[in-house]
């Protein structure tokens, strides 16, 4: 089974890192995975996308993901700025950093988590920006069940050891507790 995921973020928010961490987590569970940015001239603050594929079989394709199964939206404002559900499969899943259900129609299964508040509440802030990418992965793991929460945390700790890893792990747990279908 092949699952295709698209991350929406803003340049600098860590969408690419989130995709990489998710792939790393999946591989830890013996799955096959792939993560890639939309290669281009990325700019801080501009809407960006990143992609991941998770599969039980080796992944041969390197083409773009046109019809994702899941989209993860890192910034609530992106629901206005970008067409985040473009090409999303009919019964696809939206995992949103949002307090309330964003207006994406009725055909998708939508999960909400207030990742911004979680990051701020535990001091996960870099250069004035709440770090929401790892938080969203906690929500992703709980909402989809595609990867275990522990695998996400292991992948995050590998990349961010020590105190930063602790902070992130804490945020991931919190997100998993608070994510809900909305």
């Amino acid at each position, binding site marked *: 089974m092949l699952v295709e995921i698209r991350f929406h973020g803003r340049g600098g928010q860590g969408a690419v890192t989130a995709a990489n961490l998710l792939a790393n987590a999946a591989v830890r569970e013996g799955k096959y995975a792939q993560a890639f940015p939309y290669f281009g001239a990325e700019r*801080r603050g*501009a809407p960006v996308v990143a992609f991941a594929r998770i599969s039980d079989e080796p992944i041969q394709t390197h083409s773009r993901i046109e019809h994702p199964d899941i989209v993860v939206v890192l910034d609530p404002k992106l629901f206005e700025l970008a067409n985040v559900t473009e090409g999303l499969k009919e019964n696809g899943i939206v995992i949103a950093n949002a307090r309330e259900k964003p207006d994406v129609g009725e055909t998708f299964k939508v999960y909400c988590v207030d990742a911004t508040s979680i990051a701020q509440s535990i001091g996960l802030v870099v250069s004035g920006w709440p770090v929401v990418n790892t938080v969203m992965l906690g929500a992703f793991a709980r909402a989809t069940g595609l990867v275990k929460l522990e695998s996400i945390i292991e992948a995050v700790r590998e990349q961010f050891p020590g105190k930063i890893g602790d902070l992130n792990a804490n945020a991931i747990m919190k997100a998993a507790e608070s994510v809900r279908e909305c």
Partner: protein
Amino acid sequence: MNVNSKPVLEEPKTVFFAPISHPSPGSVGKTGTWRTHKPVVDLDKCTGCLICWLYCPEDTIIRLENDKVSIDYEYCKGCGICAHQCPFDAIQMVPEG
């Protein structure tokens, strides 16, 4: 006399895609949406030195008649260079929304 020295612009006669572009405002869209923090000018502190106007990489500092400034929020990306450069602390970066 160099009779052939004047070049002539002539349309290509085979299907043609030239690697050129024509400058236009906001060719990548309204870049103001990229902003997470916006610069806010305190006109009481602004002396009209125009340092911010010189430094702005996006030409979004609007020069007022008295040389004081305002911001073009449609295109300002919120990079904060103006606030950083202002010698009079007249520009503050305020979180968006």
